[in-house]
């Protein structure tokens, strides 16, 4: 029998806790954290796959998967409800010989070898669901093929300072990877790994099996599998990516990435109709901007009611800002209410919160000169009682 095949399928690592997002990932996995008004972080990787012509995506979940499972559903919002292929949520499962959680990123893929083999792919694209970017993976795949690569890692040019916190690739003039260092104190290059890998499946499978057999391995791509490829001198290349890319793994970077959406130059190219970012939509009406409101330089999603002042902010679906409330420099996640007389400045407020009357959250940096300033964060589903003051940098 001739079996149906997919040239390239994608495996999306969505099991991470994202502990540096603190309260925002208390009960949900990082890829399910809301972003940019109507999206969740995972929408970017999923939409990139679809916009690159990859219609088979395994989504590996482990930490707090309920919300993510629900969100992915049958994959329809991303056009991933396919008869052959499509979106598949892949939690760890018990097997006759073993019974284990995903130990590391490489082990998570190893445990899903049977899933991958169902599609007999030539290539496997490994993604992590925690970055905000738009990328045509197909171009990277062409690069992988042209170079005769077995492992291609997408890299982006970063500052020397950032390079000390990331995985750094050193390459020769042909973009072949000659060295790889995780968080080097003295980086040899500024090409940082974006956590986007394309492997030739036959090669990766061999290495995953060997890695699993090694009791000393942490079963991690960055720590074990990629160094093993490098050690054996396998053909490895760095694919240079230019464009907007942001790791939203910390509260500060999550806030920054939201604020980047307000840039009229649209660095993320959100309005390009040929590479739309898809999201699961909830039926909410158009937004009402009341006569009492004052809105400027903001992103406001459908389903909101704005009666107060909103400036330099990103307001997600279903939020309400009452008359006399002031929201500035803030990210309001879905279905949150800010009541009369409250001021929310430079903050991230989680989903379904109620900020009661006359609450003060955060402050503008210029108002706390000399003091310790930072964004304030309120977790999901919190009610903040009237009159509460939440200081800059405070996490509730």
């Amino acid at each position, binding site marked *: 029998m001739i079996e149906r095949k997919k040239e390239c399928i994608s495996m999306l690592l969505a099991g991470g806790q994202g502990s540096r997002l603190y309260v925002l990932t208390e009960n949900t996995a990082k890829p399910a954290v809301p972003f940019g008004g109507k999206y969740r972080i995972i929408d970017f990787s999923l939409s990139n796959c679809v916009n690159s012509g990859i219609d088979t995506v395994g989504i590996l979940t482990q930490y707090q998967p309920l919300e993510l499972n629900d969100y992915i559903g049958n994959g329809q919002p991303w056009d991933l409800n396919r008869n052959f292929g499509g979106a598949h949520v892949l939690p760890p499962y018990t097997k006759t010989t073993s019974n284990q959680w995903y130990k590391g990123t490489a082990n998570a893929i190893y445990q899903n070898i049977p899933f991958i083999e169902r599609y007999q792919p030539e290539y496997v694209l490994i993604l992590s669901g925690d970055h905000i970017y738009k990328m045509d993976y197909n171009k990277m795949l062409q690069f992988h093929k042209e170079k005769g690569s077995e492992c291609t890692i997408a890299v982006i040019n970063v500052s020397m300072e950032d390079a000390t916190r990331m995985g750094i690739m050193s390459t020769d003039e042909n973009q072949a990877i000659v060295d790889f260092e995780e968080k080097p104190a003295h980086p040899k290059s500024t090409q940082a790994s974006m956590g986007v890998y394309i492997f030739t499946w036959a090669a990766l499978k061999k290495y995953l099996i060997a890695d699993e057999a090694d009791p000393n391995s942490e079963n991690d791509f960055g720590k074990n599998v990629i160094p093993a490829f490098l050690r054996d001198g396998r053909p490895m290349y760095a694919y240079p990516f230019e464009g907007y890319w942001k790791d939203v793994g910390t509260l500060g970077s999550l806030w920054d990435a939201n604020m980047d959406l307000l840039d009229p130059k649209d660095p993320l190219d*959100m309005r390009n109709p040929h590479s739309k970012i898809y999201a699961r939509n909830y039926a909410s009406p*158009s937004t009402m901007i009341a006569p009492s409101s004052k809105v400027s*330089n*903001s992103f406001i999603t459908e389903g909101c009611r704005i009666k107060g002042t909103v400036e330099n902010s990103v307001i997600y679906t279903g939020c309400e800002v009452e008359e006399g409330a002031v929201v500035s420099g803030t990210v309001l996640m879905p279905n949150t209410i800010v009541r009369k007389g409250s001021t929310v400045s430079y903050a991230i407020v989680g989903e379904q919160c109620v900020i009661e009357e006359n609450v003060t959250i955060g402050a503008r940096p210029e108002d706390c000169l000399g003091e310790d300033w930072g964004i304030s964060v309120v977790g999901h589903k919190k009610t903040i009682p009237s009159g509460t003051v939440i200081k800059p940098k405070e996490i509730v």
Partner: protein
Amino acid sequence: MKMCGIIFSEMYSDELNAFTHDRNMAAIPYGGRYRLVDFALSNMVNSGITSVGVLAKQHYHSLMTHLGNTQEWDLNRKNGGLQILPPYASESLNQANRGKLDELRNALDFLREDTSPYVVMADAHVICNMDFRPVVESHINSGCDITVVATQSKMSNSNTYKSVIQVDGNMRVTSYALDHVPQPGDYCGMSIMVMDRQVLIDTVSEFTARGVYFLERDFIQSRFNTGDLSINIYPFTDPVLRVNDIESYFSSNMALLDEGISNALFRPDRPIYTRVNDEVPSHYGMDCNISGCIIADGCILDGNAEHSVIGRGVRIAKGATVKNCIIMQGSVIGEGASLENVIVDKWATITAGSQLKGLETAPVIIRKGVTV
């Protein structure tokens, strides 16, 4: 109790001909992100109806695109689901509207295949949020031949309603008038009716065979007048918006600025579904001045807008002013343009500096795709 639904998609299409030359009533954009049909359809879905026939006669391309595979309404089903029911290519094509019984002839197969005991019929032009389950319950309890959902006229107004019904102290119908002006206390039909499915099939077959085509006049009114038909009134007390001409279309859009109406229409427990477009959230510019507006996703707003309804993906450039307007999807208002009492259909371009002013009762209408 099981019920199926029928939606009439082109009642009053002729009165809104500025918008209906290439779409029918059901597909007219409304409230920034909706089409009129979304209300009747979502009400049916939220009432547990999983089998809906949409009667369409002409210009239903836009309606078909909007409904797509109907997954947004959860009607992409193996059993039942949504069927668009165009006319059979027969004598009824190219003929003026001969009435609902005639249209229902195209739904006979749909009705015969269904197994539910009751049919809910609704027009696309009536905007409300209604649970049809208590309506059907009331129909069953009344034992009447037909149940008509109606609003009670509170104060005297001079508007004509399709059906005006008078009742006695026991809510028994005493008169049924058509195209009439109601007195305070009278009930005004909402073009939402419930009948037994088999009775409807028999009625449609029998009446159309005899060349009688108007449901309200030839069936309900004449049978009622001869004492052969019992009517049950189901009073509806939540807000209702009826779109049957340009003026009511305009005011029904503006009514969404009223929080009471908006709360009644968009209830979280019974959402109104529509086609998803995956637009980016709207961007409100540094110097924009927006007040008293209903705004959909995907807009870039750098100018001024007041008391207006702004559709998906609309751009209002710097220095442009939009007042008392309805701007539909994808239209662009150029720099410094000034619009008052204007309805701009989809994908139109108002060039920089243009000045357009209509009257509240007679708004200027810019057709789809036109450049002004």
